[in-house]
Structures are given as C-alpha cells and as structure tokens.
C-alpha cells in the first residue's frame, strides 16, 4: 500500500486522535513542569452579609488577583522543574516512612495510597475476572441448547448496564440497613456496617468490578470455545485424557490468546479505576490514581484548581500504564514482524 493511500485511510482517525487526545496530552506534559499563578495583591475589603434581620459588615484583608487591561486575571507562568512531581510524591515523607519501615506513614502520602489500591485492585480482579468468565463460558457451553439464549442474555446484563447505575444498584443493597446488610446481620447475628471500614468497602468494590467485567470475559471466551478444534478433542479422548486434562491441555491453550487479550483490556481498564471510588464514596478509606488526578482538578468553592499537581499525577499514572503494557508491546512487535496473518 502506498504511503499516500495509507495516509488517506488513516488520516481522519489520526486527526481526531491528535486533536482530542495527543494535543491535550502534550499540554498536560508541559503543564507538569510549569506553574501558572495569578498575580495577587492584598486589599482591604468591607463585606456586608445578611443575618436574618440585619446585616453584619466586616472589614478584612483579602487576596485578590490583579486584572489586566482586558479584564483578564494577570498570570505568571514559570518552569519549575520537578516541583510538581515532588509535591505529589512527597519524597521527604516517603523516605522517612521507608527508612522507619512505617507502612502506615507511607500510606499517608496520597500518591502511594492510591498506587497501592490501584495495583491491588488490578491484580486481584484480574485472575477473578478470567476465572469467573471462563467458568461461566464453560458452563454455558455445557448447558442445554434451549436455555443458552436466555442465560447469555442474563449474563450480559451486568456488562451493558451503565457503570454509574450498576455501582449504585450494588451500593443500595448494602448501605445503611440495605437489604443485603440486613440479611447478613440476621444470618451472622451481629451488627454489620459495610461502609464503616476499609476492607469491607474494598471487598464491595472488588465484587462490583468482577460482576461488571466477568460477562465481557465470558462472551469472548464463549466465542472462543465455539472454535475449539473438535478433532484435537476427539484424539485427546482416544488417548484417554480425562475431562480435566482436556480442559488443561486442549481448551485452555486454544483460548490462550484470548486470555492475553482479556488480561490486557482488563489491566488498562482497571488501572484507571474511578467509578467505584465515586459510586461507593470510598475516598475516606481508599483512593485510586485516576481519582487523585480528578480530585486535584476539582475546583473548590473559591475556584482554585491544582493544575500543576494534576498534570504531574497524570503523567505518573501514564508512566505506570506504559510499564504495564510493555509485555504486550513486545508481543505486538513480534506479531508485526512475524507478519504472517
């Protein structure tokens, strides 16, 4: 294919990705080394605010930005090197915690707490999603033909449902005296508060994510099972392989590329875990990397946003993603140069 033709085919897609992904990304990268501040002045201001009947007026010194001739806030932008990064990573506190072997102190630095949860979440859900997905796929494949359709339908529901709503629907089952909490209380005969401590919240988040993603793994594996080579299976039977052996030596190897595919998609998606934090209001106990960036960007009442730190934490998150992706990148490179599709 000539370069010109190739460019014509790929052009529109590249243009969109450049405009809405690459360009913002470059600005985030640059922003992570910059600090933009308004030029401020201290002014004395008298403010009168209402009571129920009369006003109270107070005079205080307040900080106001200086406006330029166009009525815009005057700002200064300077290169600050790694300052934004050190503010996110807090190396001083980190070293102090590490040299004292003080895990608790390390977890007081938000970035490490977020990284810990993000990695734990990613690595724990990964085998669960693959395992549950595979189990459902095998069971459905095994089921009578007449009920396959309805079962696939029901199984796909958790995957297609809007994530925000899925998370809320699970939250309602547990929060306060939600019915499942009540049921657990009746069963275990003790008072249970699912949202009161970190581990129960983490458990619910893990459950939600597996519930939400396992159907995706299931449908991919199920599609894969339809293409298992029947001859290989039969010859395995003739060789006297047990059911378990056949699964292990024929089916799973056949599904291996799919397992890798699911694992990668799952790594990428779970690494940016975010909805769970919001949906289960877990920020008091656990936070994730994307939530950290989001939180830096949320303006407070006075309109302040921590753009510098948000950019830095975004770039650090990206570095993590690239690390996670290296195995896949190598495989793709081999495929690409093996080239015989």
């Amino acid at each position: 294919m000539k370069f010109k033709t190739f460019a014509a085919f790929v052009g529109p897609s590249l243009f969109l990705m450049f405009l809405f992904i690459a360009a913002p990304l470059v600005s985030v990268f640059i922003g992570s080394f910059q600090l933009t501040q308004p030029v401020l002045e201290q002014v004395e201001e008298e403010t009168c605010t209402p009571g129920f009947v009369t006003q109270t007026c107070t005079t205080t010194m307040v900080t106001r930005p200086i406006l330029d001739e166009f009525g815009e806030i005057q700002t200064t932008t300077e290169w600050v090197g790694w300052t934004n990064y050190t503010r996110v990573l807090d190396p001083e506190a980190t070293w102090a915690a590490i040299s004292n072997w003080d895990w608790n102190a390390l977890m007081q630095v938000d970035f490490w707490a977020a990284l810990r949860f993000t990695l734990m979440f990613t690595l724990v859900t990964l085998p669960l999603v693959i395992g549950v997905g595979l189990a459902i796929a095998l069971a459905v494949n095994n089921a009578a033909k007449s009920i396959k359709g309805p079962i696939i339908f029901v199984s796909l529901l958790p995957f297609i449902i809007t994530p925000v709503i899925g998370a809320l629907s699970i939250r309602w089952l547990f929060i306060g005296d939600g019915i499942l909490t009540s049921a657990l209380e009746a069963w275990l005969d003790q008072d249970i508060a699912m949202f009161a401590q970190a581990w129960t919240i983490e458990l619910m988040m893990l459950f939600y994510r597996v519930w939400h993603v396992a159907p995706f793994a299931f449908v991919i594996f199920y599609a894969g099972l339809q293409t298992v080579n029947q001859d290989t299976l039969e010859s395995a039977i003739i060789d006297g392989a047990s059911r378990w052996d056949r699964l292990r030596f024929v089916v799973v190897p056949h599904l291996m590329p799919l397992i890798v595919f699911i694992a990668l998609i799952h790594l990428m998606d779970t690494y940016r875990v975010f909805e769970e934090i919001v949906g289960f209001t877990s920020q008091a106990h656990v936070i994730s990397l994307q939530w950290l960036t989001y939180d830096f960007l949320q303006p407070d009442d006075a309109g302040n946003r921590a753009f510098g730190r948000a950019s830095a934490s975004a770039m650090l998150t990206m570095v993590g993603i690239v690390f996670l992706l290296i195995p896949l990148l190598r495989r793709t490179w081999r495929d690409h140069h093996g080239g015989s599709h």
Partner: protein
Amino acid sequence: MKLKTILMAGALSAVASMAYADCAVDNEVELRSLTAAFEAWNAVTAAWEECGNFQAELNQEFRTVQPEAFAANPSLYQIGGVSNGTITPLLNQGTIRPLDDLVEMYGQNLRPNQLIRINGEIMAIAMMVNTQHLMYRADILEDLGIDVPTTWDEVLAAAEVIQEAGVVDYPLGATLKSGWNIAQDFNNMFLGYGGTFVNDDGTPNVNTEAGVNALGTMMAMTEYLDPEYLVSDSTYVQQQFQQGSIAMANLWASRAAAMDDEAESQVVGMVNMAAAPLAMEGGAPATTLWWDGIVIAANISDEEAAAAFQVAMEGLDREMVEANNDAAIWLVEGYQAGRLSEGAIATASAQPAPASYPSTSQMGLMHTALGNELPAFFTGEVSAEEALAAVEAAYTTSAQEAGILE
C-alpha cells in the same frame, strides 16, 4: 398510572406553560441562568421561566463550570446563583457587575438586608440564609425528660441517655461524609471553639488547641453515630431522621421542611429545631451562616443586564415566597417564620453571633485540605495533631501553588 392520571398530568403541564401571565415583566431578551439545584432554586427558577424566553440551568456541580462560563465573552449565562462560598471566583475574575444602578431602578422591593455589598458596591442580591443547627426529636427528649441541649456537652450527655434508653438505632446523626461535608463540620466546631483558620500572613493556623478540641468533640460524637458516618451526607442524615432511626443532628436549615413531608417522613411534626449548640461557654454557636443569592454577569450588554435583573426580581418576589414558604429561610418580603425556622433564627440572632462562612481563596484551599486529610483521623490511622499537621502541610502546598504563600 391510570390513563386518567396521565391525562391529568398532561393537562397540568399545559396549565403550567400558560402561566406566563403570572410574570409582570414581558421578557423579550433570550436569558439563561446557572444555579445550584436545591429546593429553593427550583422555586425561584420556575418563577423566572414564567417570564418567557428564559432557560434555567440547575446543576449542583455548577461551580465546575460557572467561573469559566462567566469569563467567556459574551458570558454564557446572564444570571448566576451563588452562595458566600462560590461568589469568590467570580469576584476574583471581575466577571460579575456592580448592581447599584439596577437596584435603584428595579429593586424597590428589596430589603437592605439582601444587598451584598463589597466595598460599598452591591455585587449580589441574597435571597435566603442557611445554617446548620440542632434538629431533635421533641417526643423522645420529652419522654426521657431531657432539656433541649444548648451546648455540645449537653448534646453528648443527652445522647448517652438516649443510647441507654435504646429508643432509636443511633442517638446522633452527623454530616461527616469525607470531603466537603466533614470539613464543614470541622469548620463549625473549630469556629465554635474560637479558632481562626489562617494567620494574617496567610499561614495556616488549625493545628491549635481549638483544632484539637474540635476533633475531640467530633470524635466523641462518633460513638453515638451510625458507624458508616464517613459516607453520610445531608441526604443520608435527613433520611435517618425521616425513618426514625436517629434522635438529634446538627443539620442544614434547608432540610427542615423534609421532616414534615408526609410522603417520605415517618416522624411528621415530631422534629423540632433549636439553635446550633455552643462548643464552649460564652462562645458563638458552633456553626456558620450562609447566604444564597444571585449575581449578574459583567460580559453582557447593559440591555441584557437590565432584562436579566428585572426577571430576577420577578422570581424573588412576595408571590414566589408565599407559594414556597417552607422551602428556605427566605430574606424576601412576605416570608412567614414558622416552627421549622425557629432554630435557624435563634442561631442567627445568638449573641455572640456565629461567623458568616468566609468567602476567600484561602478558605477554599483550607476547606479542601481539611476534607482530604481529616478522614485519616476518624479511621484511626493518625492522631488529632498528626491529622491537623497534615492539613497544614496540604494547605501550605496548595497555597504556594496558588501563589498565596511564598
């Protein structure tokens, strides 16, 4: 869901759209507003829409958009809804206009109390006040022979008695959801103990006796709370009240009407309001005063501003207040203070009076720092001093970033 009710609903909405007649001004300029989305704003924006050519946008996350939208030229909205917290970025950017001329021409019905003046210029028109104050189950307190508590010590003592009597699931409720809510509860208590958030040079000042006392009292409260308090926001506490599972809480005045809502509440008429308790003898009630009101954008033509202001006045009139009397503690003429507003009025007129929530950039940063760092104290990971030190460190970092501190 009978056919009849559907037809009825259709007929009702037809009536609603014919109600233009209720609006005295005949608005011909395309106008848009961006406000928060609670009950009082629903009432006010509905009245604005009656004037025609008006599109109201209600969004509880309005603060993520409002500063940018008002900074655009022309501004995307003519009218903005603000509180004493969220007016700060608009003042900083200079994107709202002084209203003195407009008030003089069209604001005959405004009370002097409603005019928010900054350096003598009217920058906003307040419509309501809000505050957190004590709500309590009058029936329970009476049964157990407890006087209405006026200090936090009395609240805790009363909670102990209620706990022993075992009449409700949890004696207390509190809006301690991590983030904005828990920080606000700390603010109340901290001011109640006479603390000041920042020094004159802008450095933080919360790791003090007042700060430790405030956290101590809050921690003492948690014994009587639903253990899930770190996810409990105002709606959650309101529901706990409505379902009869708590007996007392320091809750927003704007939530009072929900207690008497027969469709939701199982405790209609049983919840009374009193002034916010004192944290220490001789101090102000441990709470802050808030106002909500409107501003007019600067980056619009004078004609648009005049039209917007007239429409705004139309929504803030006696008629609207009379129709929605219990939706808020209105500052507008025609408001009838009733049983539900007793607590808020007692709070606002206490001597010494509670502080108004300070609308400064510093306070915004402090609020965020508190909201992020305090939960670690309540989960038991750090001590009160460590938590407050972490708050000061977080504040210092973000203040340096914002250019407020060197």
